């Protein structure tokens, strides 16, 4: 059994990377998830038959027939548990199956794809329906019939609107094809992955860890959430592709909030994902992290606000990950922005590098690679890996930037230039329905990396050169997907919606002033100014130890998550694109920093209930 599993896993690219022997053994747990009961060969056959029927017969007289139909069938199983102060607040087990149909009309040179219909953001030639939890070919085929019909009708509207837009001087390039053809792929081998941790196991862990906050009188609210999920996917296209892929992840999230002495709301979090719970920190390590969060909030309560600062900033560990995530990752896609996208939405979506291929875009020491075929790096599991992307294209390792020069971008089957092809990075979507090239296992590497002390020395030296008495060190950014559910009033939310500059990165949650004598002073209210892509040219040094961080990239913006409440129930996010960033610490020559005083609240109107004696 183990031998079979190993070969399957290797075939799936899930054991590539520098996984140690012990780690590899852990991954080969004997308990693997049994094959799907919902999607069997009968279901795939039924959907394929309906696909063939639609290709032959689906047409409104006088209108074009589909030239491409594709289906993505997704089966998700999730177990979640959340606890606070030693007691459960939520435990859930979810299982659902859906079928997504995509229809293209026109031709590969000009079709309906990647276009936002004016006033019709939801018209995107994509239709999703629910499938049964147990294999029922008759219903699957009926579902495919209805979803394809709906997607086809939308495709015709989208095509007409795109044609009219082009006539009216739309931004699309006539010399670039709309779609790239692809050789068919066939494989019905289901990927074997370890079974999910049970809800009872998750609940026990969440309760035990969350009890760590019972003795902390300065903590207002705290939660520990753990999750375990798997996602099976099947891709079927009229080109003949029929492949399947499976992703498996477990995660843990610790969050806590407090209040500074001047009234400012404070929040911290600790988040880790792995393929299974065995990739997560041990219980003792997590208890230590809970203690660190508690101590950090205690110290932040009396920490001063950062004050005005323009100078070098060192991003360390999660801080470096946050810097990469906010300023670089969204721009690595090479899929053209959807025609018709509102400029403000386009800015949020990324795309700052699309016109810079061949140019220097980062410091010479830096190389950026995305490798969705990797399952681990530096002894840590990576969750951003996959075998097949969302358009049924095999995943590929791509180096986008080498020695500071932009070589290429991450592409999907919607090209941005003639002869471009997908390099297997179709993951995120935008209005208009197209998949866009996205980074999921993003490696930042630097030549001549420095040790941590040397890097700090360089920070201090750089600050001194600017005539500053200290340099700034950032260790963590806010993440609205996991730290929302704050104690906002309605008035505060409205104010936030009206006044937040969405071009700014999220506030820094952990930041220090670093003085020439090496002393580090914790500060609050650190808000960096806008960080354009050119900031990467100003990286003046990097560390020599990579930090590995997994997360789920949400489709919503920071402010949307904040306003909407994010994971208001405290769950570990299980929605979003599985992603990992592997980066050394990064020192940027000059960044403008503002002081944020948002979240000022009165001191508690009533004293907190007495903390029980342990």
């Amino acid at each position: 059994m183990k031998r079979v599993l190993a070969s399957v896993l290797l075939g799936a690219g899930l054991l590539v990377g520098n996984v140690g022997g012990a780690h590899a053994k852990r991954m080969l747990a004997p308990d693997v998830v049994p094959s799907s009961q919902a999607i069997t060969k009968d279901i795939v056959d039924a959907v394929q038959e309906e696909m063939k029927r639609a290709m032959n017969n689906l047409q409104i007289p006088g209108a074009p027939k589909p030239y491409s139909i594709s289906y993505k069938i997704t089966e998700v199983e999730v177990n979640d548990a959340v606890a606070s102060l030693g007691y459960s607040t939520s435990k859930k087990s979810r299982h659902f199956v859906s079928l997504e149909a995509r229809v293209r009309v026109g031709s590969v040179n000009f079709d309906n794809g990647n276009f936002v219909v004016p006033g019709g953001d939801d018209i995107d030639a994509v239709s999703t329906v629910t499938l049964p939890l147990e294999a029922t070919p008759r219903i699957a085929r009926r579902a495919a019939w209805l979803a394809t019909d709906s997607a086809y009708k939308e495709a015709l509207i989208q095509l007409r609107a795109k044609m009219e837009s082009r006539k009216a001087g739309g931004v699309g390039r006539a010399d670039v094809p709309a779609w790239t053809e692809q050789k068919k792929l066939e494989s019905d081998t289901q990927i074997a992955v370890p079974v999910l941790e049970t809800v009872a196991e998750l609940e026990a862990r969440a309760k035990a860890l969350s009890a760590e906050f019972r003795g902390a009188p300065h903590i207002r609210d705290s939660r520990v959430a753990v999750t375990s999920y798997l996602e099976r996917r099947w891709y079927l296209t009229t080109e003949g592709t029929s492949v399947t892929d499976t992703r498996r992840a477990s995660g843990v999230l610790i969050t806590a909030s407090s209040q500074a002495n001047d009234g400012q709301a404070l929040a911290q979090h600790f988040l880790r994902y792995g393929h299974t719970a065995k990739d997560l920190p041990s219980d003792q390590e997590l208890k230590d992290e809970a203690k660190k969060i508690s101590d950090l909030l205690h110290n932040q309560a009396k920490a001063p606000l950062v004050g005005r600062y323009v100078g070098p900033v060192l991003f360390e560990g999660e801080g470096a990950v946050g810097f990469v995530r906010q300023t670089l990752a969204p721009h690595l896609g090479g899929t053209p922005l959807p025609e018709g996208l509102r400029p403000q939405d386009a800015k949020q979506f990324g795309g700052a590098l699309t016109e810079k291929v061949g140019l220097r875009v980062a410091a010479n020491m830096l190389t950026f690679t995305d490798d969705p075929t990797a399952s681990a790096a530096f002894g840590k599991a990576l969750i951003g890996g996959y075998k097949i992307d969302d358009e049924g294209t095999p995943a590929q390792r791509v180096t986008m930037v080498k020695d500071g020069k932009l070589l290429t971008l991450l592409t999907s089957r919607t090209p941005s230039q003639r002869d471009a092809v997908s390099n297997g990075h179709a993951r995120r979507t935008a209005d208009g329905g197209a998949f866009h090239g996205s980074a999921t296992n993003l490696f930042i590497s630097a030549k001549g990396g420095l040790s941590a002390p040397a890097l700090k020395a360089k920070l201090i030296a750089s600050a001194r050169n600017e005539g500053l008495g200290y340099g700034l060190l950032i260790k963590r950014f806010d993440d609205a997907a996991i730290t929302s559910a704050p104690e906002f009033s309605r008035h505060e939310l409205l104010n936030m919606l009206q006044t937040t500059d969405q071009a700014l990165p999220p506030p820094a949650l952990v930041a220090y002033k670093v003085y020439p004598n090496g002393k580090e002073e914790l500060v609050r209210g650190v808000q960096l100014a806008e960080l354009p892509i050119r900031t990467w040219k100003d990286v003046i040094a990097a560390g020599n130890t990579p930090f590995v961080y997994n997360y789920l990239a949400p489709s919503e913006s920071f402010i949307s998550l904040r306003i909407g409440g994010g994971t208001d129930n405290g769950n570990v996010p299980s929605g979003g694109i599985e992603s990992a960033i592997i980066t050394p610490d990064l020192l940027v020559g000059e960044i403008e920093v503002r002081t944020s005083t948002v979240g000022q609240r009165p001191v508690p109107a009533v004293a907190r209930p007495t903390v029980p004696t342990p």
Partner: protein
Amino acid sequence: MVVAASACGNHSAKPAEKPNLPPVAAETPIELPNIPSSLKVTKSAPIDGDTPSARSPLLNIMKAENDRAMVELRAKAEPAHYLAYQLVEQRQVRLEAEGGALINDDDDTDRNLDVEVRVGTAELDNTRQLSDDNGLNAPLTRPGVVPFGADPFAISNALWLETDRRYNESAQALGYVRQDLSTLSKRSEVPDFSSDQREVYVEAPATLTFDKKLWIERMKRCSAKALRGHATRGSCGVTFKLTTAWFVNSEGSQIQQSWTSAQLNVSAGVKADDGMNLSRLEQRFGRTPDDLPNDAAIDEVIKTVNTDLDALHAAPLADPYVGPAILEGRAAGVFFHEVFGHRIEGHRQKDDTSGQTFAAQVGHDIAPPWLSVYDDATIQTANAMQLNGFYRFDDEGVRARRVELVTAGKLVGFLLGRNPIEGFPRSNGHGRRSPGLPPVSRQGNLVVEASKSVERTQLEKLLLEEVKKQNRPYGMVFTDISGGFTNTSAFAPQAFKVNPVMAYRIYPDGRRELVRGIDIGGTPLVALQSIRAASREVETFNGVCGAESGWVPVSASAPSLLIEKLEVEKSFIPPDRPPLMDAPSIRQTASSKTQETAQ
């Protein structure tokens, strides 16, 4: 109203001119026998089943924290005058099958907290509506997350956290209220809050038992049968709930209520050739899963759904129409819920942005003298049917009770929560909400009574006489209304629209023709005064109603009603076409033949 998917109520706007109605005088009065409509009900008083020994320690924790908080909040520069906690724990089981296959199998339990902190005084507090209705003093309510179990510290911390947030928000809101009042030439003297008596009641925890495997198989069989004929969608689902609610307030009330509920949905749908989405939904409700129909009764429900859907698929589109019509019992119940019930909710009489249709009509005739209307949440069953709108205490800790709304045609009362209105200073136990929203006055079990009535068959004869009298080619009969909405905003006409599902033309020769594609529209005052006769038989509609305080279970019981003039409008029909290809035949899928034969 009503049924999931309908929007109940629409609110906002300016003071309206008070209508000065003449007494109702039917243009063509119909002599009716002095025999009342017939509704047999069973009731349970709020304090029935009080079981102090079943008291949860949660009530003690909530009481202690409420007391502790109020000691400090009453002493603040902006003192709180009222603090209430409501903790609702609900297990919800949802099993749903489509076309013979299970598509949903959920079993979730949540525990949510609502905290209400009122700052100021009962006469003037943070909830006072601002003159320009900009919502600056509106609270951000949310279903707060509370740990399960009864650990005093974990529970108290959750209560404290939300109380602190809501107090600060309420204190800020009161500032806006004062600022607003300082700019007004006159202010309402009606208080913002009514206190009530202390209630202590403990209901023993209910238990939810059901055979999951059996219900899954039952839903699969049911949905396989529902997906027949013209239907492209056929589904059956059950929802079982176990709810326990604990309420504590600063008046000293401590209430524990616990109940189960069960709901069966059978639905089928298809898109007509002209693009109209046709669907038939039949729902059954009960206190427990055992109250739901058995297999044979479910088969009858499926038969109704399928037969109706096929008939609708073949039915012609109807044209706009004004003339006599019968609203059959359930349809009449929904009609009254929408057209009358929402307008009689007390807070709307106070809302300057509401049309206040009935605010000045107390003591005036608004309906025929043989017609009365009341709402009574203490009714458990009507004609042996479990009523959805039964409860013992409302979500503001006030006892449920019978409230007379219309007596012998005269308006006499309103549905009230703790937001008093002129002439009605106290709650009558109708402050309701779903977790996470502020309570407002809502309907429970609305009952329409007729002191004079005729047999249902006689009602149809009266309809045909009206057809002749009005020289109409046909009359109309509505047997099922899916829901609708009523505009209560003063910025728009005080009109309603309800959506009939099953509508028939009745020709003078007695021929009956099903039609589709229409809505019933009109204005409430005219509609009520157009009622000419009622049937002896009373039917009940059970459902859930959505409005600004969320979804709440309700019922509406009414006799069939003859309306002298009802206006029917064309409804919106999307210009979509039905599926371009015929439904796939599974027989083309060789590997699936067994599945098909099994159906």
